């Protein structure tokens, strides 16, 4: 399946009575890469989980290849191509690694699991272990692999590099880049490491207090240190 485009219009969302996101609108063309940046607690996670339909939505539209999915529950959104790697990883703690991977597979052939093992050989070694026994990094790998096996056309990554060894980070970013380049997936990346994010993404959205305060091309942001300092804080770029 080819990558899908994503467009968000006037999204307003939050948790229970708390409104966190307001008036969020942006568009990501099919096959492109968008980074979502912002300081701690500004609503990045909330944005991704709202796109996935995992928390409360007060209004707005989410168009996947032009079709509004905002009213659907998350399983249906997943079936239409959205896939999320959550920040908290959300490994199934009582399932083995292999079973974790199986949950996300839509077509029934178990053979595809090999792909995940190719991407993360470490997982193959641990495939009979239960989720809760995994190290932090292994959980992260599993979470990424699990979502990718679902072959999403729009992939939402919430800090996927957190807790991973540098070697693996590199491999993973390379894998994401390949994935995007293959034209099968549009990627939204939330990442704290500005450099990695800017290397990866074509365009950037910056969130502050639940609103989009800046939207533009990655290279523009990289060039403008004032902007970085204002929205991301000092120490963002080295």
């Amino acid at each position: 399946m080819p990558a899908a485009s994503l467009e968000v219009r006037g999204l307003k969302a939050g948790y229970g009575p708390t409104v966190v996101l307001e008036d969020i609108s942006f568009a990501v063309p099919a096959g492109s890469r968008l980074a979502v940046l912002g300081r701690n607690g500004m609503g990045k996670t909330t944005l991704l989980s709202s796109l996935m339909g995992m928390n409360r939505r007060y209004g707005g539209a989410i168009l996947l290849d032009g079709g509004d999915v905002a009213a659907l529950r998350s399983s249906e959104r997943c079936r239409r191509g959205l896939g999320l790697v959550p920040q908290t990883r959300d490994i199934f703690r009582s399932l083995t690694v292999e079973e974790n991977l199986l949950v996300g597979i839509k077509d029934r052939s178990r053979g595809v699991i090999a792909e995940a093992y190719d991407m993360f050989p470490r997982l193959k070694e641990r495939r009979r272990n239960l989720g809760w026994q995994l190290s932090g990094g292994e959980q992260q790998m599993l979470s990424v692999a699990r979502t990718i096996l679902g072959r999403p056309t729009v992939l939402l990554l919430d800090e996927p590099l957190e807790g991973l060894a540098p070697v693996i980070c590199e491999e993973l970013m390379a894998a994401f880049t390949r994935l995007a380049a293959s034209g099968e997936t549009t990627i939204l990346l939330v990442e704290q490491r500005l450099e990695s994010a800017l290397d990866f993404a074509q365009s950037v959205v910056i969130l502050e207090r639940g609103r989009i305060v800046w939207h533009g091309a990655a290279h523009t942001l990289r060039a403008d240190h004032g902007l970085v300092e204002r929205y991301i804080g000092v120490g963002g770029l080295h």
Partner: protein
Amino acid sequence: MTQPAMDVSAGAPTRSYPLYLRDIAGVAAILVAGAAGYWLFPDNLALLTRIIAVALLVLSLDLITGYCGVASLGQATLFGAGAYAVGFACVHGGVTEPLTLMLIGAVAGATAGLAMGAIMLRAHGLAQLVLSIAIVQLGHEAANKFTGYTGGSDGLAGLSVNPLFGVFEFDLWGRTAYLFGLALLVVVFALLRVVVSSPFGVLCRGVRQDPVRVKAMGAFVFPVILKMFVISGAVAGLGGALAAISTQVVGLDSISFELSANALVMLVLGGLGTLYGALVGTVIFMAFEHVVSAINPFHWLTMVGALLVAVVLVAPGGLVNLAGKVGGIGRSKGSKP
């Protein structure tokens, strides 16, 4: 830039300490409700006394379930310990002074609480719940077996209690018993408010949410909960003692699974983790049961069932906390390597 929406709630759910004003208001509310009960239902004082005795049991359960996250389906063990100790002291030991009997009940309950806590804290979750069931069943069985002391299934009858302070008799109309119970409840409630808002109380709440975190803070978990068990036992024991003194008979029902289960139902109904919930739950449940069973003695159970289901649907946080979150048994779903 306009004020972001999320700040609206920023200050909302803060807890402000000290809560003394709220506590005083709470005690006053109990007193007012108690007095109202006295004037409004002067003919139902025995029922109201029974509600108070059970309220003490439910309060005691709240201490370990609502605050420490240890669910128990055997809390009546502690209630029964108090009741039987009083019955035994009165019938076989010749103690007839009501305040002494209350003290005996509290000590017996606390001792039973210590033993029960020591056993139950071996396990977690469901296994723990089952331990509590096993304990109350063993207690029940023992009370049934030692007929010579407990009267077995016929009950331990013939408690003759002196008038309170030598003046007020525990009579048919039950005024003494009720007012005495009410005073007892108010005192216990006020003391418990102190306990649960002390550092110890907060620590217990911590244990409920994540014992591993508490340990990593350098605090032992076991003695903390055990201490709460002892306090809980004393409170339940007082409830049992009150029931024994006001009824003048101790039956096997006072140390039964049914009573334990009812207590848990009332607690969850009212809301866990606030002492108010325990009181509200008890009063509503027992009053409802009383009213519907009087209206239709044959098929009222259906109505009670419907009430429980309705509460879960409408007020999952318990009646005191209609909009709030549910405490749960509080076992953290976090990792336990």
